[in-house]
């Protein structure tokens, strides 16, 4: 099946057109955040303070790249394990995030929150850091520079490949894919 091209940020309509198992190519601007940045963002939400980035419609990519070599936009930049962000994801969705990209299983709470707030969870190929870095054309730190590789980066991506795992209808590729090939 041909991958679908999608443009970040996403509307509710965009989200509802995506189904678990769809292969997509993401274009536009996405943001990075890992454990430490999520913790800071959720602390600000708890205090009712403004966030350093507007999450409305945005993609959050769970990644901590290697340092860029001279001449590179970014170093190797594959996804990290998403489960570590489970505790924060429902709050991020409440604040407008529409899609997150990582690898690995999500909790039921996250899956429910994706349905409730109309969001999707996608996986990029874990460990394909060299390949994925070529799809990132520009990278700049926009918040928490003190976190180094864990700072929030703004990335410009072109045809960044990902697969929809959990859609807004409650489908789960990890459960369904394995069923189809189990013996």
């Amino acid at each position: 099946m041909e991958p679908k091209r999608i443009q970040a940020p996403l509307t509710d309509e965009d989200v509802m057109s995506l189904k678990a198992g769809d292969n997509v190519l993401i274009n536009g601007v996405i943001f990075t955040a890992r454990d430490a940045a999520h913790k800071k963002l959720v602390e600000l939400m708890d205090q009712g303070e403004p966030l350093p980035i507007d999450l409305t419609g945005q993609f959050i990519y769970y990644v901590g790249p290697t340092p860029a070599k001279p001449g590179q936009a970014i170093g190797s930049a594959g996804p990290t394990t998403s489960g570590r962000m489970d505790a924060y994801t429902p709050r991020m969705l409440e604040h407008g995030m529409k899609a997150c990209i990582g690898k690995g299983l999500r909790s039921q709470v996250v899956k429910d929150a994706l349905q409730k707030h109309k969001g999707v969870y996608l996986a990029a190929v874990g460990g394909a850091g060299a390949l994925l870095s070529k799809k990132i054309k520009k990278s700049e730190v926009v918040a928490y520079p003190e976190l180094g590789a864990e700072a929030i980066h703004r990335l410009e991506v072109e045809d960044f490949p990902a697969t929809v795992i959990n859609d807004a209808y409650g489908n789960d590729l990890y459960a369904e894919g394995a069923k189809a090939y189990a013996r």
Partner: protein
Amino acid sequence: MRELAASTISDHVAEMCQEANIYLGEDVFKALRKSLETEESPTGKEVLKQLIENAEIARNEQTPICQDTGFAIFFVEWGHEVHLTGGTLEEAINAGVRRGYEEGYLRKSVVTDPLYDRKNTGDNTPAVIYTDLVPGDRVKISFAPKGGGSENMSTVKMLKPSDGEAGVIDFVVNHVKAAGPNPCPPIVVGVGIGGTFDKVAVQAKKALFRPVGEPNPDSRFAELEKTILGKINDLGVGPQGFGGRTFALAVHIETYPSHIASMAAAVNINCHAARHLERII
């Protein structure tokens, strides 16, 4: 007595850190290509192709295969007849890691204390080092940068001797099933059996240093490796957990004699970025 300078060790280690992270071993390449022939799922095939392409890009552009350039793990076999000059082995290895990770633009992924500060040490030290004294005047250094994603999906269990072969199979298969897509499949499964609580984990780690797909020299354990691999792939989890026939590339078992009352077992998972390298000095 052969004299060996600590700085020589550091030089080798610095090179090895970069080499292992940039050049995926031929053993893993071969295993990935072979699985591309047997994979039935179109999405699974696509993933395998991306992984092969990724390793080729890394090789051609001298960039790390994966952004998690790992905790630096070393197994050192030190010949009795070698005398180290100008520092300790630990210092020499850590100096090499420091230099290798900096010069190679590798990610520093080690924090000071695990619970309170969790402050990045900034140079990916300290390494985890296991040393064995062996006869002779050679030093063999084996290195693996171990990713956190797959390491987190590892475990130890004190099985009962009466659990037998079926107990070992169940333990490994169920554990790997629960790990699912998290350790970036296709995975390599290191299994330790025997020894004590601590020794069995080291054996499982050691199993990951074996060239991917090389069977255990004892035919009974080689057979068990095959059986477990078949059951793991029959789970249907497939490359990246998207569904398919290639969940694991290989199962490697390393054993150790056991106490009469015990049968310790451990699983240490490695991802498809199964980086490992050895040098004899």
